[in-house]
């Protein structure tokens, strides 16, 4: 049975070039970048190269990048690190109700520590309004955290407008962007968008799990959250994951070398898929009306069909999708985006997420849409009362 993997927002398949490079680093260039001998120098050179590639994509200095173990760690480091460093100038933070749990739960932790957090709502397409952000920023606001691309419905936030609005109101307020779903799909320029902190994860861009990075802008001081051997200028102790980092940089380069063409193609696939599945009676796409949408994320609600059942039925046909948001699917109370845009009751339970990658083909999309169209009438015959 042919495998059609459409759960790329959960994780992606590694590029073969990346896996090969990592293999070489594991088996040959396995030195510790902190070692003084040749093996160490060799490994350090790989890190330098990786930083040059990633910094080039973001148009920032390599020294602005701190490597972490994942997007979640990047978010934690950015938010807790900023709160700890700036606690004397203020105790107020702002975020949105549709953030990933890595941000929301970190905010809850800070609330327990005595910080105050404002959670901004979104409109029915999942968009955050720059005006609302501006209105919420206060004299004592130390950080605003807004995601670039929503992981559940694919809405892309007006990051540049939000960045400008924040700085207009309070130049000292830091701007954190969780770009775990956006990096590799959009050209994100932190300086232009006035972003101080940007979180990225490797495994969402066809690199390895267990690696990510945090961009920290010039003049932005944050406290580390891991202590130890003082690697990465003390910002993140712990031996760097050299193979993972080198692989992440290579995957990023492959994606950005061809970004516009790939995005055009992904948008065509996305729209083709949408046109096919919206022929199913009553089915609809969430976030369709957003001004900016990710080329790869589709949130499909099929009333009368439980997402979990559809997911497993598709699985039997070799098609892999996710229900709601993969990160939160075993903790439904955290799956906030769908309820934030106004989905109710069964609709929440009737929503699947399809997420594409550059590895998908038109055939994948057509087959998956056909499989859904074929299953829905059958599954709708048997419902729980």
């Amino acid at each position, binding site marked *: 049975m042919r495998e059609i993997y459409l759960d790329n927002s959960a994780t992606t398949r590694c590029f073969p070039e990346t896996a090969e490079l990592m293999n070489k680093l594991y088996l040959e260039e396995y030195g510790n970048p902190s070692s003084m001998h040749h093996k160490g120098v060799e490994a350090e050179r790989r890190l330098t190269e990786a930083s040059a590639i990633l910094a080039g994509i973001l148009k920032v200095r390599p020294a602005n990048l701190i490597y972490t173990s994942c997007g979640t760690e990047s978010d934690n480091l950015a938010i807790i690190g900023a709160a700890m460093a700036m606690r004397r100038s203020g105790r107020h933070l702002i975020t949105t109700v549709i953030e990933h749990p890595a941000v929301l739960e970190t905010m809850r932790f800070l609330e327990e520590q005595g910080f105050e957090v404002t959670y901004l709502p979104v409109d029915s397409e999942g968009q955050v309004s720059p005006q609302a952000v501006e209105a919420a920023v206060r004299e004592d606001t130390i950080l605003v955290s807004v995601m670039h691309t929503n992981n559940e419905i694919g809405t892309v936030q007006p990051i540049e407008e939000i960045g400008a609005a924040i700085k207009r109101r309070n130049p000292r307020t830091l701007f954190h962007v969780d770009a775990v779903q956006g990096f590799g799909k959009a050209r994100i320029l932190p300086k232009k968008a006035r972003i101080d902190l940007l979180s990225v994860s490797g495994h969402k861009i066809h690199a390895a799990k267990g690696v990510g990075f945090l961009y920290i802008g010039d003049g932005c001081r944050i406290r580390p959250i891991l202590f130890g051997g003082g690697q990465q200028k003390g910002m993140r102790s712990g031996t760097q994951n050299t193979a993972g980092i080198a692989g992440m940089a290579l995957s990023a380069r492959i994606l950005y070398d061809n970004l516009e063409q790939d995005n055009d193609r992904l948008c065509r696939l996305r729209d083709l898929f949408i046109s096919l599945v919206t022929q199913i009676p009553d089915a609809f796409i969430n976030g369709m009306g957003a001004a900016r949408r990710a080329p790869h994320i589709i949130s499909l609600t099929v009333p009368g069909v439980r997402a*979990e*059942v559809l*997911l*497993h*039925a598709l*699985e039997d046909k070799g098609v892999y999708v996710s229900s709601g948001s993969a990160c939160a699917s075993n903790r439904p109370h955290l799956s906030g985006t769908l309820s934030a845009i106004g989905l109710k009751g069964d609709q929440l339970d009737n929503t699947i997420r399809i997420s594409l990658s550059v590895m998908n083909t038109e055939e994948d999309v057509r087959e998956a849409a056909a499989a859904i169209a074929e299953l829905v009438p059958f599954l709708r015959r*048997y419902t*729980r*009362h």
Partner: protein
Amino acid sequence: MKYQSFLIKYAEIGIKGKNRNMFEDALVRQIKSALKFCEGRFSVVKTYGRIFVNCLTEYDYDEVVERLSKVFGIWGICPVRISEVVPPEDLVRQAVDFINEEYPDGVHTFKVHTRRLNKQYPMDSLQVNAEVGHAILEAEPRMKVDVHDPEIMLNIEIREKLSMYSHMIPGPGGLPCGVGGKTMLLLSGGIDSPVAGYMIAKRGVKLDAVYFNAPPYTSERALRKVKDLAKQVSEYTGPIYLHNINFTEIQLYIYEKCPHDELTIIMRRYMMRIAELLAKRSECLGLVTGESIGQVASQTLTALGVTNEVCTLPVFRPLIGFDKEEIIAVSKKIGTYETSILPYEDCCTIFVAKHPVTKPKAEVIRDHERNLEEKIDEMVERALQTDEIIIIGPRDERILKHREDPLV
């Protein structure tokens, strides 16, 4: 090495007349198999009508006790100190040291019980009792002798070797696995059925199990969960043959043809029928379920009767008189609780009606089952063909028979 041996106490198998040897041999076998993967080497011997686990090398005390306390048939485990036979004054000193080590901070009532089988020994058992008791009192004057109901019973045995033991770690009781034949457990992902399996197995009965899965309504994780439960139960019972049956087709057919509020009861009747067919194939002498009276609609006395009537084999329900809290307590004790509460849907709940019948009438149910006549026999036959058999033990699992026809 603090203890050189463990004395295994067994209660019930001591009174089984002519079968006693068979029971004891079964227990020795189970003990050997429980210790197979423990660090160290052991010999398990029947001697003087008792079972000893002798430790031949260094071993991990906690690991051994944990393994032994899961062997059905063991009532208690006594760690034994063994040394060369020494003259009386040394023996007395050793006994005092032993008590101090065993009960370092306690002040207790005690009694010394000596058995002297080595008649060359210069003191007889009563003298040893008196001398040791005296010395213990001298070392710790707050200790008290109580010959009727002592907190500490210090046993001293003088044979070719000198052994001392005092405290007893409780075992699970019951009878050694396998002496009571084999049954088929209907295993779902819930809290009750693993406990029911444990209770039956405790009486020496071997377990096979059947699980009904219903893809795409149940997931691969639900099956994983059931395998994990079987694995946890197998710590006590030894390897379990788990039959994984695809039930989707039958379930959907019942959904289409029968009144919705009777879905659960009719579904359970078909589960029982299939379980019985499997049980007979694999020489099981009965079915085991986790039902308890009144717990849910399908477990009222009337509903149990209606479910029961489709079977010719006896259906054992060891939890029938248990409250939910009591079942949960056992599941926590045997280590299945945490797995049981994982939130994966099983096939009993996917189409459950809001108000299922609580007092089904057998004749009405039989009548409605006639709506299924056209296809149900071939569906049952197909479901049996989907039978995937997985042998699940505490340490490994392997597929004995692959699913021939996945039906999905």
